[in-house]
């Protein structure tokens, strides 16, 4: 190997600073959430305690955190499952290059670039004009799908663009029906990528704020609850909550990434190089 050039070290330093910029603030509030009971929102630390985490578990202290957490979790799982199923179907559909696919593609891009607050406002208006009550599991759920589906579909497009059609042809030559081909050939090959779609579906829903603002109804999701806290809570309990949510997100991400890695490894061991193009 040739020796590293000077520009490598300059760029590596830049990269390290960028990572510090990305994670530094999050680490800072993680440290500050262990403030002593008399501590404030910034350094110095006035002692070290679990006081603010303890506060999170007291119902009255900071609103309905656990209720909103369980709602966000449920909604995240609903959105995740729907996003995976619908994106796979959509991905399969676009391989057919059906009439009107161009129009649907434009709609998907529109859904991606439209300011979130418009979805929130529009869905809220529809529900109020029709006399329905907005609820996180109906209007909130639909609004979030307009954000997660485009990501899921774009990933599926990328996956199928790299998909080797000869596997399907082989299956069909051996007499597999359309459904059998999808079920036993296509789905196992794309399975690791579906973990990626699921990760997007869950986390984007779990953290979504703008699209649920006017569509969640009287029961808040966690990001709405946290937003409410930013305006009236001025103690490190805010940081404690932030740290807990971030740790939870990291755990979720880790589970998804490890699952994807294990699935990839299993495919490799099975001796097939299927899907190896879709890094």
């Amino acid at each position, binding site marked *: 190997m040739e020796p590293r050039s000077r520009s490598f070290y300059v760029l590596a330093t830049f990269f390290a600073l960028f990572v510090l910029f990305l994670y530094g603030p999050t680490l800072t509030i993680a440290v500050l959430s262990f403030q002593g009971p008399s501590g404030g929102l*910034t350094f110095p630390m006035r002692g070290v305690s679990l006081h603010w985490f303890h506060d999170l578990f007291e119902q009255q202290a900071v609103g309905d955190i656990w209720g909103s957490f369980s709602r966000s979790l449920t909604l995240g799982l609903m959105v995740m499952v729907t996003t995976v199923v619908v994106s796979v179907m*959509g991905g399969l559909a676009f391989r*057919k290059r059906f*009439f009107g696919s161009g129009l649907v593609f434009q709609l998907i*891009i529109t859904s991606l670039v439209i*300011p979130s*607050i418009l979805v929130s406002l529009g869905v809220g208006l529809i529900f109020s004009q029709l006399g329905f009550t907005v609820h996180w599991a109906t209007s909130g759920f639909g609004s979030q799908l*307009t954000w997660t589906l485009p990501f899921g579909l774009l990933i599926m497009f990328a996956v199928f663009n790299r998909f080797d059609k000869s596997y399907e042809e082989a299956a069909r030559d051996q007499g597999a029906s359309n459904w059998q081909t999808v079920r036993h050939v296509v789905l196992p090959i794309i399975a690791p990528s579906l973990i990626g779609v699921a990760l997007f579906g869950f986390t984007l829903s779990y953290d979504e704020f703008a699209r649920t603002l006017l569509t969640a109804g009287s029961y808040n999701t966690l990001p709405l609850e946290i937003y409410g806290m930013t305006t009236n809570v001025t103690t490190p309990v805010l*940081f404690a909550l932030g740290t807990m949510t971030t740790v939870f*997100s990291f755990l979720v991400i880790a589970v998804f990434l490890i699952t994807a890695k294990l699935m990839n490894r299993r495919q490799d061991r099975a001796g097939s190089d299927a899907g190896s193009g879709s890094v």
Partner: protein
Amino acid sequence: MDRFLRSRTLTGWALISPVAVVLICFLILPIIVIAIVSFWQATEFSIIPAFSWENYDFLFGSPVTYRVFLNTFKYAVITWALTLAIGFTVAYFLAFHVRTLTWQITLFLLCTIPFWTSNIIRMISWIPFLGRNGIANSALMSWGVIDEPVEWLLFSDFAVILAFVHLYTLFMVVPIFNTMMRIDKSLIEAARDAGATGAQILWNVIIPLTKPGIMIGTIFVVTLVMGDFITVRIMSGSQSANVGRLISNDIGLLQYPSAAATAVVLLITVLITIAILLRFVDIRKEL
């Protein structure tokens, strides 16, 4: 009949129908309703169906509107320039200076993980840094750069743009890295063999081939910044405004028709911007 059932278009539409239903109910219909309501009138307590240009007259007649739109563009342009510069450098390092695929993927994931965590928390986490008694001020004072705390760090345009860059640089890194990874390395070797310097390779080979990734990143960053209201609200401490905040303020006052009119103008602005940007890139080809 059988042939018809097996036709591409029918199967295609059967498979795409869930996507179509969601996008019609939660994207198209809401846009239509917003467009209709933007012509309605509002009292303090309710909104009244009507057809009046009142909301638009007010919107275009108010100097605030122009100032706020200008401010929105200002945020978009500055954030775009910064995220592009940082995002390109990071992607360039990952794609051309990190040598093994394992390290490339690991470092790439390190950059993407924050994307899957809460934006609001990531905004809040700047408070201990930027506050009057925050880390930045204490550090600057102890180094003797300043004598008293700087006030404009938190709750200012500076804080807003810092947060935008913090949140959205990822959207530049990912597509640019993706395009760079597809550049045929032999093109770069050919350029080097032909006597090109590193800077010439960067300028004449890599940047032109990375343009599609840059455009996709640009589309993401520009639309996210233009449609934002929450970052500006939290990071400026309600002292600055962009179009999103104009809309959310009207919603807060239950002035839905006026919010809808602003939303229509914002949507048109965003769509025109995207239409222009899409002239430079074919997204379907880049996936």
